[in-house]
């Protein structure tokens, strides 16, 4: 049976209140949804809360899902909205350990990766990635959101436009501006370190 057909069947049962079918339905997008939430909320506990709240909302409003679009895109959209709601509510964010914190608590500074082979690659790729991710916090929420969805999770422009409920033109310009801004932040950090 094709995955689509199976998804349709699970959806039908879940709409009638079958929790098991619902759990099967969300199983395939649970991991990605959790990681989206973590990037937004920066800690596992909040991400789990957001994920649970999202799934309950989805379960409750399953009947409103129009089956002409992809189910997982709909799920991620709800997760994004839930995360944004939580961020707005918790404007005095509690201080918790970020999963991106480095061990020695100092800000690591690395050069912007230069594929042309420029000098001084200080850290390995993983640490570079983590540093770049930590710099996302210096972006505006809107800029960070688009980077998370496009660059970290690889959603297409069309998917992002559905998830954020905006036009593809808006997605295009936001992605470009956000990446340029992120690059500037990394450059600023490099300058601070080397001056």
């Amino acid at each position, binding site marked *: *049976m094709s995955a689509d057909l199976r998804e349709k069947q699970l959806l039908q049962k879940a709409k009638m209140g079958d929790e098991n079918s619902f*759990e*099967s339905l969300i199983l395939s997008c649970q991991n990605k949804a959790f990681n989206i939430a973590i990037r937004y909320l920066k800690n596992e506990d909040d991400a*789990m809360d957001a994920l649970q709240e999202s799934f309950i909302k989805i379960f*409750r409003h399953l009947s409103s899902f129009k089956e002409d679009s992809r189910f997982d895109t709909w799920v991620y959209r709800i997760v994004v909205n839930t995360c944004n709601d939580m961020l707005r509510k918790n404007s005095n964010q509690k201080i918790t350990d970020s999963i991106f914190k480095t061990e020695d608590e100092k800000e690591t500074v690395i050069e912007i990766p230069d594929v042309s082979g420029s000098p001084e690659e200080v850290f390995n790729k993983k640490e570079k990635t983590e540093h770049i991710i930590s710099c996302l916090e210096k972006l505006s929420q809107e800029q960070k959101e688009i980077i998370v969805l496009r660059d970290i999770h690889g959603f297409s422009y069309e998917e992002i436009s559905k998830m954020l409920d905006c036009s593809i033109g808006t997605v295009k310009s936001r992605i470009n501006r956000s990446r340029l801004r992120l690059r500037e932040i990394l450059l600023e950090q490099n300058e601070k370190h080397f001056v």
Partner: protein
Amino acid sequence: MTRINGIRRESVMKCSEIRELLSLYIDNMLDDNQVKEVEEHLSSCDACRKEYNELKGIHELLGQAEMIPVPDEFSFRLKKTLSEEKLKMIDEGLITKQPKKKNRWRLITSVAAIFAVGILSYGLYDNVMGNLPFPSDGTDLAGMKAATEETNNVKAAGLKGKTGESESKMEDPGSTSNGRVVMKEQGTEPQPMTTYKVNIAAADNAPTDSGSVQTNDAAAGSRQSEGDRPAATADVEVESIADTEGCFEYFALKNSMISQDECSRSLTGSGPERNSAAVQYYNKLIEEKLAGFDYQVLECTYAQAGEWHFRIFIFRGKDGNTYNEEIRIIGKDGKTETICSNGFMGL
């Protein structure tokens, strides 16, 4: 063409335009003409090329960010919350309770449940309660067979008392790959259509590739005199089906139990009733698939259109890592499909 700070005006303008296109270029969102224009510019403009390389590098590194697995406790937490939410939704009238199965199914399943209680209680004693009859470590089922055989003996003895006419006997377990309880009327010829209750089936009773189930021509069956007894009691219901192997009862935690006569009918039918042999078959595939895993099958349910859904809890993977996560394996058309959100399990 004017010069500004030594740079041709045309190039300055073009750089700012190109800059707006760099992200789209990285994401393959430009048409062919635009791609050509960007590439031509990048080949001659060091500043733009540097910026492009840096943006591309950032994009690629972010794409390699590690995915963090969903914590183990989440699924239990979600399950509990979903159940609570469902009750709320029923109270609010948003959903109705699950439609009741047809009366026929209810009668059969409830009757089968009574019949299975005796098996289950013995199974509980032998620590097989709640498990499907295929242990994950692939140990021999002899102990379980013996348990079932003894229960069958008890039933057989009871049956004998009830019928007053027939006598039951236990077949020599060694004579078949399963232990079988054969209900036989003394002195009667084996009838072509008989209900059996057998032990946990052996692995060689997988359905054939045509979808039909192996049948056993051995005339080991006989017909019970009274045909109206419910199958789930100590009596065995008379059913007119072909003598077959591979019919067995399986145990589920929820109300998915199939009665003996449903099971029996399944082996000759071509429709969804081919359940028992199918479950046995898929269990075998699951065992092979999960060789080396420490797991427990939580539930086996029959969905529509011939699908068997197995809920399986993975304690440890074959890599030795602890997962404590639930997966699902769906069996249909002789194949299995695994639904697993954790990509690290290797499933």
